């Protein structure tokens, strides 16, 4: 099935072609259905994560914020290293 745009309300038929049981989880009025083609790596999922990251937050937050935060966390390691080196040199 080709990727579908977000349509809001939709009718979906589910057929279980596998051996295991299938369970649909959701609220009484809404069920979200996500399709995954096989297993995603974290790296493959990252763009989707970045777009979800921006939803339900302040206007200032966008998908870019996810990458920005990752960069900041990496930067904090470098600054921490600098702090240790700075204080270590005075030991």
């Amino acid at each position, binding site marked *: 099935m080709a990727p579908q745009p977000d349509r809001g309300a939709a009718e979906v038929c589910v057929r279980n072609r596998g051996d295991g049981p299938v369970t649909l989880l959701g*609220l009484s009025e809404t069920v979200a259905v996500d399709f995954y083609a096989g297993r995603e790596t974290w790296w493959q999922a990252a763009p989707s994560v970045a777009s979800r990251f921006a939803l339900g937050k302040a206007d200032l937050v966008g998908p870019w914020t996810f990458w920005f935060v990752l960069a900041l966390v990496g930067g904090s390691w470098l600054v*921490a290293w600098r702090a240790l080196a700075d204080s270590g040199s005075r030991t």
Partner: protein
Amino acid sequence: MMARLRKTLGAVPRAGWLCVAVALVNGFAWSVITPPFHVPDEISHVAYVQYMAETGDAPRHVAGDYMSPEERQTLEALRFFSIVGQSANRPIWTDSQQTALDRVEAEGPSRLSDGSSSTAVNNPPLFYALQTVPYEVASGGSLLDRLFAMRLLSVLLSALTVLCVFLFLRETFPGSPWAWSTGALAVAFQPLFGFISTGVNNDSGLFLASAFLFLMLARTLRRGLTRRRGVAIGAAVGLGMVTKLTFLAFVPAAAVALLVLLLRARPGRRREAIEAVGLAAAIAALPVLLYLALNELVWDRQVFGALVGSEAVDFQGRAGSLHEEISYIWQLYLPRLPFQADLIGGEALRSLWLNGLIGRFGWLDYGFGTWVYDLAFWIVVALSVLAASTVVRCASTVRDRWLETVVYGLAAIGLLLVIGRLGYSARIGAPYPFEQARYLLPLLPLYAGGLVLAARAVGRRWAATAGALIVVLAATHSLFAQLITIARYYG
């Protein structure tokens, strides 16, 4: 005064400011990663701030909704109540859900609540009054914009906490500059601290007030009691008390420190010591008296709210007993004795406190895999043994500095007892458990000191390297805590 402040801040070593920078950056990351309202009790704390900002009043025990229509509709659009406590459920993921949220924001629901009871209602107002500033600055935006601004203030408070820890360690270990950065960075990267202190929760203010008190106690115990230090200790106690009433736990420790220093003052300095203690007591009492007066005369609240938070619903509690309370407090921190009834439901030391400090996030609805807690247990055991071996090896120094040991010990015991008393009250009177590991975080300066002692166990030559390894461990811990948070909400 400004010149003196500039001089004081100018005396902070560059490494201290770098630690503050790490805390700011890491705190900002936590504040953005954690979805709105998913820091424990954030819905109640935001409601308190909003009510105070919109009315200039404080919430009280009256009937009605403690949340404004704006907050309640925003939470519904965010599907908050179906996500919290349900680790399989995710926040809004689709554009149509975002459109529904945008519609709520565009409709502009009322920002006025009834100002009634929530879990935050008994809290003193200082933290909330401070948070009205970013709330007002962002008042042109949506509630989520204002929440974002409020969290930024919390990030700032958490960075100041780290600065206080750095300065506390500088007083405590003056000859070991590596120790100051090691302890401060270990705190900056502590995941539970990062998660809680960067949300809208008055614990953020409590951590800062506690760290400032520890700093001023250390400075006074090491350098002597002066009027200025008396004022600072009084300010720390007074501001801490009107931030969160559990700060009461530290009052006996501060009082003992001041009284012993007064008794030890040389005759020539006795007058200044008496004035310093008087100033400390007066300045500590001032905000508390102001708070009591506002409660009584302006806000029509309980004069001194109960220490434990109270819901709008009445609980049908049962009568407790002193014997049972003592047994409960014992079991909260120590192994249960054979003759004691099980009041906790298992052992708390590891499952509640240790695992909680390693990390339970959200509204306690997700955490690490079991193997992480098992591994962390042995790391904590190893660090504790190392720290204890340093204490034994430096027994003469510990003896010389007995007053510091007594004061910090009293502070820790005071907090444990207050948590125990509140926990027991909740156990017999409230429909929800009270105990959470975050309540130990006011002891962060001692946690940092303990890690420094562990690093020192390997000897003077390798101590800085051991400290660096501890920081790498803490930073890795923090990174994985942030990754599981991303996986919980967005993965």
